[in-house]
């Protein structure tokens, strides 16, 4: 038997923008066991619900994570809206989908860049982020913020986009797609990318289900699982088909994300086409009483918000289960049996968002 060594990975590591610590047990070059330790970003923000009113909690929810900030806000608002039996105007719901899908494009482009960087493909990283800046420009133009924009609100959205602006945005989306196409071609066809990711970090369909994988990680292993199929909000009027790959390796996870960007761009065009005129928010009176598990689909997968109100302006409990938390057990499974050199690529392939995970 080969000699066992323990290699610490993180928390400050060149390939990781965020701190996570893994103890890798190695036999020669092979990883045989992994022990994760988390908690570097644990802030304890769930307990803030006892200090901030339920309307201020939207700002806290948006700061769970800066990448999928808007969807966090929307998920929280949906939970409160169900508890309070609020009827949200259709226009607000469509705007939520618009910004939500735009966030997905931004998040996936960001991931594609980081993943390219992890395999040493520097120019691809730069090009992904160049296209991503165009998405951020749309955010800034419509809401005023580049990454965290505080557009969600209990009862609707805070800012409207005029019809003229929406028509202009349709053109901007076409431009983004035009710039994105050659980039996507590199991810789908380039030899380097395929060579580095094919058959690395394999996760079978059974394991993915058993270990509770969510989002692109699950879809790349052949599980058609997408919470947008629950048809919450405006997804009631917008049909979404989950994008599924069956290979189950890092490359399949990349392909899922590359294709989801096209899907999101398409969804946004449908939103611009279908969006009805009208109010953007309903007046909120009273305080939430009751409980609800709100489930929405984030760029990284399914996220669950549990809100429990007790009839005062402070909530009893606010709990978030974020997609990366659910993806840690599949990650441990993928890492077993890989080589040390593949660890960064595999860790990045689940799109880890540590500040979500530890809250």
């Amino acid at each position, binding site marked *: 038997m080969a000699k066992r060594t323990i290699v610490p990975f993180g928390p400050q590591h060149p390939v990781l923008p965020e701190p996570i610590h893994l103890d890798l047990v190695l036999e020669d070059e092979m990883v045989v066991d992994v022990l994760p330790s988390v908690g570097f970003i644990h802030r304890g923000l769930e307990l803030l619900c006892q200090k901030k009113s339920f309307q201020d909690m939207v700002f806290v929810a948006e700061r769970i994570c800066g990448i999928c900030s808007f969807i966090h806000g929307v998920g929280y608002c949906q939970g409160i809206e169900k508890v309070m039996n609020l009827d949200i105007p259709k226009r607000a719901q469509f705007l939520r989908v618009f910004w939500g899908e735009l966030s997905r494009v931004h998040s996936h482009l960001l991931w594609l860049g980081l993943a390219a960087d992890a395999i040493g493909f520097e120019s691809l990283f730069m090009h992904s982020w160049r296209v991503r800046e165009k998405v951020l420009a749309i955010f800034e133009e419509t809401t005023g913020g580049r990454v965290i924009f505080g557009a969600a609100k209990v009862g609707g959205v805070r800012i409207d986009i005029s019809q003229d602006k929406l028509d202009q945005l349709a053109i901007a989306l076409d431009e983004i797609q035009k710039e994105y196409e050659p980039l996507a071609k590199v991810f789908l066809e380039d030899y380097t990318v395929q060579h580095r990711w094919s058959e690395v970090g394999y996760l079978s369909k059974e394991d993915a289900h058993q270990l509770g994988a969510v989002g692109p990680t699950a879809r790349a292993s052949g599980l058609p699982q997408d919470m947008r199929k629950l048809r919450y909000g405006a997804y009631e009027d917008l049909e979404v088909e989950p994008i599924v790959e069956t290979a189950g390796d890092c490359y399949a996870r990349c392909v899922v994300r590359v294709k989801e960007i096209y899907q999101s761009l398409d969804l946004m065009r449908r939103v611009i086409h279908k969006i009805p005129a009208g109010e953007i928010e309903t007046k909120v009176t009273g305080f939430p009483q009751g409980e609800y598990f709100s*489930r929405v689909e984030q760029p990284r997968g399914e996220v669950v918000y549990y809100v429990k109100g007790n009839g005062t302006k402070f909530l009893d409990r606010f709990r978030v289960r974020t997609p990366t*938390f659910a993806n840690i057990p599949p990650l441990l499974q993928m890492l077993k049996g890989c080589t040390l050199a593949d660890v960064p690529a595999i860790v990045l392939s689940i799109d880890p968002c540590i500040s979500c995970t530890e809250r």
Partner: protein
Amino acid sequence: MFEDQEIVTIERSELISRAQKISKEGYRLVQIGCTKQSDHFQIDYTFDKEYRFYNLRLSIPLDHPTLPSISHLIMPAFLYENEMHDLFGIQVSDMILDYQGKFYNIAKKAPFATISAADTTTEKG
């Protein structure tokens, strides 16, 4: 559109058998969550199968919070159980991986259980 959510209340002794049954039926574990109530801890085990939401709920007393682990049946449960131990001080027995309270490494022990809503309400106005 809001989904229908089935919440079933069970006893602590039933937990293992119910969890075994439901994971055999092909449900996946979505989350395990804990909520502190005035006289008990409310524990939620959430499962999902093809977008069907199913929740097992049980309550355990505040002064003697113990739970059997389901992590040898459903592996991902160990993360949530360690989390519950660190945040609420719930003793979970026989976890497949026990961090011994070092999961989140919080200076204060079981913050969610010791802080009550009354003494933290500091917001102005």
